[in-house]
């Protein structure tokens, strides 16, 4: 029933310009019903530098029904549940059109990261913080990005610091104690 040839074509299309858009879609299972989307946090936002993973489920009626998407990376954002990763976005609901694709949906999600809509919140706690104390919101969101959306790059940081001649265990504890900040970890390693 699912139009796999269309999903297949979409994947090929994504693969072609993955360097330009930095958006990736990879199958999780063989039958293409479950996929993982990856988007970079938009520049100039508290999500900058993070890489966010999104679980995608292709429904029976795709592309006439919208794909189901939710964050598997934890995000602090008024329109995304901090608990479940559920996304409140019109194109994933009533504004979905069969002419849209997985990639365009992911682009819309990326745009949502840049432009939160606290008046239509998915997470009331985050939305309230966003409206009442924006600075606290920014630092919380940044902290979450640092903690959850950069996990994959910790290995890279470890690798770089190990290459500089420090021991693996030493490097890991330094990174952990400096909250994931590579420079701070380096300072610690040099001083200690």
């Amino acid at each position, binding site marked *: 029933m699912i*139009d796999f*040839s*269309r999903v297949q*074509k*979409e994947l090929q299309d994504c693969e072609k310009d993955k360097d330009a858009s930095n958006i990736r879609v990879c199958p999780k299972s063989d039958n293409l019903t479950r996929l993982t989307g990856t988007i970079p946090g938009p520049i100039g936002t508290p999500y900058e530098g993070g890489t966010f993973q999104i679980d995608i489920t292709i429904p029976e*009626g795709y*592309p*006439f*029904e919208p794909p189901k998407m939710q964050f598997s990376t934890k995000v602090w954002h008024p329109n995304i549940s901090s608990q479940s990763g559920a996304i409140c976005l019109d194109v994933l609901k009533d*504004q979905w*059109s*069969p*002419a*849209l694709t997985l990639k*365009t949906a992911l682009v819309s999600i990326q745009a949502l990261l840049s432009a939160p809509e606290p008046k239509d919140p998915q997470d009331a706690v985050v939305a309230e913080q966003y409206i009442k104390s924006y600075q606290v919101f920014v630092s919380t969101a940044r902290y979450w990005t640092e903690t959850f959306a950069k996990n994959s790059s910790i290995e890279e940081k470890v690798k770089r610091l190990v290459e500089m001649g420090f021991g693996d265990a030493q490097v890991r504890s330094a990174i952990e104690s400096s909250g994931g900040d590579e420079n701070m970890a380096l300072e610690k390693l040099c001083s200690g």
Partner: protein
Amino acid sequence: MGDLLSGDDEDYYYSDQESLDGLDNEESCLQPLSSKANTAKVITKESLLAAQREDLRRVMELLSIKEHHARTLLIHYRWDVENLFAVLVEKGKDSLFSSAGLAVVENQRCGASSFSHSSVMSCDICIEDVPGNQMTRMDCGHCFCNTCWAGHFTVKINEGQSKRIRCMAHKCNSICDEDVVKTLVSKSQPHLAEKFDRFLLESYIEDNKMVKWCPSTPHCGSAIRVEDDELCEVECSCGFQFCFSCSSQAHSPCSCLMWELWKKKCQDESETVNWITVHTKPCPKCYKPVEKNGGCNLVTCICGQSFCWLCGGATGRDHTWSSIAGHSCGRYQEDKEKQMERAKRDLYRYMHYHNRYKAHIDSAKLEDKLSDTIREKVSISEKRQLQLKDFSWVTNGLHRLIRSRRVLSYSYPFAFYMFGEELFKDEMSSEEREIKQNLFEDQQQQLEANVEKLSKFLEEPFDQFADEKVMEIRIQIINLSVAVDTLCKKMYECIENDLLGSLQLGIHNIAPYRSKGIERASDFYSSRNSEEPVGELCQPSDCGTSGWTSGFDQALGSANSEETSCSSRKRPRKDGSYSNTQTSLLDLNLPAEVTERK
């Protein structure tokens, strides 16, 4: 005559001349007849298509557009043709169309425009190359392959959004042409196409504020269309009488909100539970409920256990009026007692209103049965060699009785909320409330007294009486019929002007009083030419919109509001220009004094 009428009988006869006329000119059938404002129509499964077409036709003609475009517009404007025309005048055609998602170019052959076999096109949905003849372009210009369109329509119809299916292109608000939908869906899934057709048809009921399904259970299958005012009560052809505003049983003069609350309150057994908590306490030993009798707070269960009524604690038997030996239950009991007093007061208040409401509802049920007896008595009387030949005053009196009995019944839940604390606590001072309550209860009592009297006279075995006595009863019944009608009118006026009128809360919808009872909706066809091919009307499932014969179109073309109002005017009514026979018939039924004065 009754205490109410004594002294100013004449006033009644004159001021109420009109309703008396109406009383005598109604046809002598036991069904309450509707007045000239007979505008409610019963729409059955069979007449639904025709009912819709009337509105479709007006829009199609005015805008010279095709039927499916007219339907899209009407669905968007909730079948409110007047509003649609108002938007047209105010904002113009383009704005009218675009707001409804219509991309129509006048007189253009719209809908599916196909391309040739040879041209191969790319469909942006399935991302396949498709021969041109398998592509369909919608009115908005967006073009996709037939398989994709069908897939889109299938999902939307299954979702139940099928009345207005939007184009597949992102952010295109254009509504898909229903003919294209039907054609493309029916190829692979004929049952879905039928479902789509049914949705379109039923939109006339579900999206239309002037049309409502009859709320009868089991559902009779009909819907009712009203003409001008949604605030009314109607009777469906199945006999069910309901409030058009809230779709529950007819309840005027109780407002929709009050009726909603009252229904819940009556269903809610908490009142009964309250009664038990107020009047009984479980024995601390055997847990049986024990009722208190007498003023003493020491109660004894049949098991022999004594306990304190105030706190429920087990005690010894030694006690005085004020205390029980070895027992004290402190301040807590006082609060609890106050709470109980309050619950008791509320309960008694509710029971006061409920008992009266219930009593009148029960009487109404008995009086419904009276219809048969009265019909019999009338036919016996008509065969007798009496001076009096016309007995319409009996049946008309019965109608008035049934009508005013209803008013009386529902005036009790009205009063319960009007003078209670639930709805208007802060709207009136207690003095104000008392004045209003006295005013209303005075009217209610007068109505009650006259209704009971009328009921009593109607039960008399007048078919066995001699001429003189029949005449006497006739005068009584006519006078009382007029009196209860006047009192009902007065009660509605009082509610509107003196009770609710001065309050801020404007949410109390009360269907207006009609002397002749709840309007019976007439069959959708009965207002038209009887030669209309009713039987030939095709069922929605049998034919698409194209299945309409021009013959039927013509028949409908002449059907209009003139004819509708005409047919109801045909019914003999007192309009001042009456034939002699009718005038004399009228005189015959007037009270003697009045006739003489003429």
